[in-house]
């Protein structure tokens, strides 16, 4: 059962990677990379259970946090052209 889930997630990774490569807009890519990161997190958790070693879940949590940082930085750069911007619109 877990093997089937692993295969499904590998297919998701492939599709997300193709979408990141062909784009065409930046937002397609951001969404695709987000999906890809989520698939990575799921893959690590599932692989842990697949090998009877669920302590891999810790790494999956770290991944989930890191993805968030990267996406926020990317969107902020796109919105303000400056990572040190204080976020004030005016």
């Amino acid at each position, binding site marked *: 059962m877990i*093997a089937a889930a*692993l295969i499904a997630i*590998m297919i998701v*990774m*492939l599709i997300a*990677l193709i979408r*990141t*490569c062909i*784009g065409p807009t*930046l937002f397609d*890519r*951001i969404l695709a*990379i987000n999906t*890809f*990161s989520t698939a*990575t997190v799921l*893959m*690590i958790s599932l*692989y842990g259970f*697949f090998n009877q070693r669920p302590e*891999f879940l810790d*790494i999956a949590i*770290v*991944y989930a946090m*890191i*993805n968030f*940082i*990267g996406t926020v*930085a*990317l969107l902020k*750069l*796109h919105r303000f*052209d*400056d*990572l*040190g911007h204080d976020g004030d619109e005016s």
Partner: protein
Amino acid sequence: MEDIIIIFLLSLLAITAIAIIFMRNMLSVIMLGSIYSLLSAVIFVVLDAVDVAFTEAAVGAGISSVLFLSAFAVTGKRQVLKQKNKLIAFVTVSLTAAALIYATSDMPYVGDPNAPVQTHVAARYIEQSGSEVGIPNMVTAVLASYRGFDTLGEVAVVFTAMIAVLLLLLRREEEELDREK
């Protein structure tokens, strides 16, 4: 199953690398770069190198993509194409790759018990690190105790790099302040 996963992840890695070569939009290159680190981190997890995967995820996917993004905020998002000396670059890369591939024919197989990695100090780390150092995790024992000076040197290098980056960034802010005056 493990083999299938590794082969699949490695081929995704190859696709990502080729896409990075042909991509001209630098933001997309950064995104593909973080996909590349995520993929290699999963490969490390599958190969049982959990601590390396941790580092790869934190440094490769997290910090370095943010660092690249802040560099692009300073410089610009487009890559300027230079069409010079492509043949020389191609020959150099091919020669280096051929030499490296030739070198792999001398390497021991993965997990070979007679490989030099397994025969020298590894046995002592495995058998005695618990009683000698008293840390349950072997990798931590090696990093923090057996190779403590090594780690100290690494910390010094990372610290120096951080000071250099901070100096460069702060300098730019000072210049902007001067211009405003």
